[in-house]
């Protein structure tokens, strides 16, 4: 597992495309922080926070799914996977090693860019609040984690890189872009009293949505979701909120990895 982790991390850091992400994140965050220049200090959920969260939701899931799925389909296409099959490496070890390597590499480049953008923000004299910044940082890391896992799963399902790309984009579009539209359309068909519980179930099923809601509630802004979510807000804000998040992350990992293992097992001897 250690070798897999090391190889994934080392290959990533040696690719030139990896540093493109650095430029992208630095640009995005510096510009977003600079936007705040005209306003008073930000510490809570404001329009800038909303914009940043939305931009993160546009960019991170898509990139992470593509990176995750490519890292597996690439090896499938190049034959490295078949070579690995001859080694005494179990599939769970392979997956966990891959995730650890990708996570290290992506979290690192994100942390570096975030640090640089923060420095730019500080140098240009913008008032930023620490809990606010750390909230956004944590939200991004969790998004990276969640969508890398989903990407890896897609990689085990797709046979070629092209298919992996298509599925990633399709899923990103569904989970992020048309999620409200799809839900409103679908829930229009069910009896009215069912809408409320189904919305809550849908929130748990979509990890991006779960993280977004969790973050907004942790920012003390859960009241905006209205009376229907009062119980959810209280639950997330109480001491058990963080354990629910950790539990959710573990459950999510276990479910998707079990599915990935099943898929890879079927393909091992193809």
């Amino acid at each position: 597992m250690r070798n897999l982790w090391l190889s994934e991390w080392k290959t990533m850091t040696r690719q030139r495309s990896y540093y493109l992400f650095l430029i992208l994140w630095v640009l995005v965050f510096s510009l977003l922080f600079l936007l705040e220049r005209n306003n008073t200090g930000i510490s809570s959920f404001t329009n800038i926070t909303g914009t940043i969260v939305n931009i993160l939701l546009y960019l991170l899931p898509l990139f992470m799914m593509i990176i995750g799925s490519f890292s597996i389909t690439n090896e499938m296409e190049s034959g490295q996977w078949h070579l690995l099959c001859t080694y005494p490496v179990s599939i769970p070890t392979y997956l966990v090693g891959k995730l650890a390597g990708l996570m290290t590499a992506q979290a690192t480049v994100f942390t570096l860019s975030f640090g640089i953008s923060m420095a730019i923000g500080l140098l240009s004299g913008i008032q930023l609040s620490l809990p606010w910044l750390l909230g956004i940082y944590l939200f991004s890391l969790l998004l990276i984690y969640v969508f890398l896992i989903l990407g890896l799963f897609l990689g085990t399902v797709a046979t070629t890189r092209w298919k992996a790309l298509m599925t990633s984009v399709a899923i990103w579009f569904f989970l992020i872009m048309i999620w409200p539209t799809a839900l409103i359309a679908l829930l229009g068909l069910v009896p009215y009293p069912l809408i409320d519980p189904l919305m809550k179930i849908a929130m748990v099923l979509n990890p991006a949505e779960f993280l977004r809601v969790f973050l907004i509630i942790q920012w003390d802004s859960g009241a905006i979701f209205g009376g229907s979510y009062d119980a959810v807000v209280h639950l997330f804000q109480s001491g058990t909120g963080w354990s629910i998040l950790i539990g959710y992350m573990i459950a999510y990992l276990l479910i998707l990895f079990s599915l990935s293992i099943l898929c890879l097992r079927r393909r091992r001897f193809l």
Partner: protein
Amino acid sequence: MRVVVKLFFMAVMISLLGGKEAFAEASLQSQINALPEGAVLKLQEGIYDEAIVLKRPIVLEGEKGTIFKSCSSKPALTITGKNVSLKHIKIVGCQKAESSSAIYLSGKQHQLEDITIEGSNLGMKLDEVKNSRFRAITITGRTKANGFDLWESHHNTFEGIQIDHVQDGFYMENSHYNTFRGNTINDSRYGLHVMFSDNITASKNVSARNFTGAMVMGTHHSVFEDNQLIENNQNVNAQGLLLFDVHDSTIRHNRISDNRVGMFIEDSSGNKMVGNEFSANFVGAQMNRIEKNVIKGNAFISNVNDFQATDGTDNTIQKNYWDAALKLDTDGDGMSNLAYSADPFFLHLTMETPPYQLFFQHPGMMLLQKMLKSPEELLVTDKEPLMKNELKNHIQPEQQRTIFWFICLAMIFASLLVIYFGRKKT
């Protein structure tokens, strides 16, 4: 013989002194009753466990440590008639107290100053009180009842009053021409609660961390100015200022910040909203069914959503500053040529199905809103948004820069190390 006389004299003295003390303890009421009109009674420090009734014009003045305890079913102090003054007094309610209020007032021209009320059910009940003044009063409640409760009380002034942990800071019903100046209400349900009361003036009050900063229902010709309604955002129905059935009133120069909804206004007409600052609210202003209002020269800054509006008719909405608006000034008059409108789509959607409120500011929702643009006539529009914010910004205090730099550099160096080891050939 001398010794006997001395002993006798001492016995008389002791009995006299003791008797006097017992008299004071037993009936402060009878002492008050014996006072002529306009007299001043100074109360020494100590605990008075007695419900007092003041019917005639006298001055009751305490000193530090003059405490009334109200454990009976009667108010600690009942004030009727006219011209009663009360100064430097503290009233402490006890846990089992069932009294309706700490102080009950009726009549006119009373003066209450430097009064502290702690742990009582209802702070002050005003029943048909007129032309009275209330200054420097502190009320800490038990969240079950109101701080001040006004019923048919007119022309009163409330100044420098601090209220926290009550139901409503000031609740008034059918009470006209009252003035509230420089009061602070925190951690309660509603700060100021106006019901069917006209000509109310509220200025320089601060209402923070309540469910609703000021709840104004059914009023004509009232003025709300220079108030600060902040951080009323914890409850799912929270808002800074709620105006319902409000007519011909003026709302100006208020600072409405960090609320769930800054200003909620419904079924109201003929009001002037000028020079208010709406900042960092989840929704700056929400307007339903309003007509003939003037909304001018306000600033909407850093609100997650500037404003949501439905069914407005004949309103004059212009020259406001919206930081989220696209602005273009071709003729240099300081006003943008592009109109700025509130799309009622999301408001309609969540009114029909409240659970969809979860999509507030969802990235996909923004897309849907752009695709399904509501028709022009349904939009509430500012035709001439201001290019620059003419109101002063409130600047937050300087942050701790060293911690920032430390975290920032730690992030950069840690990640550089990881990259360095990743690239290093082994």
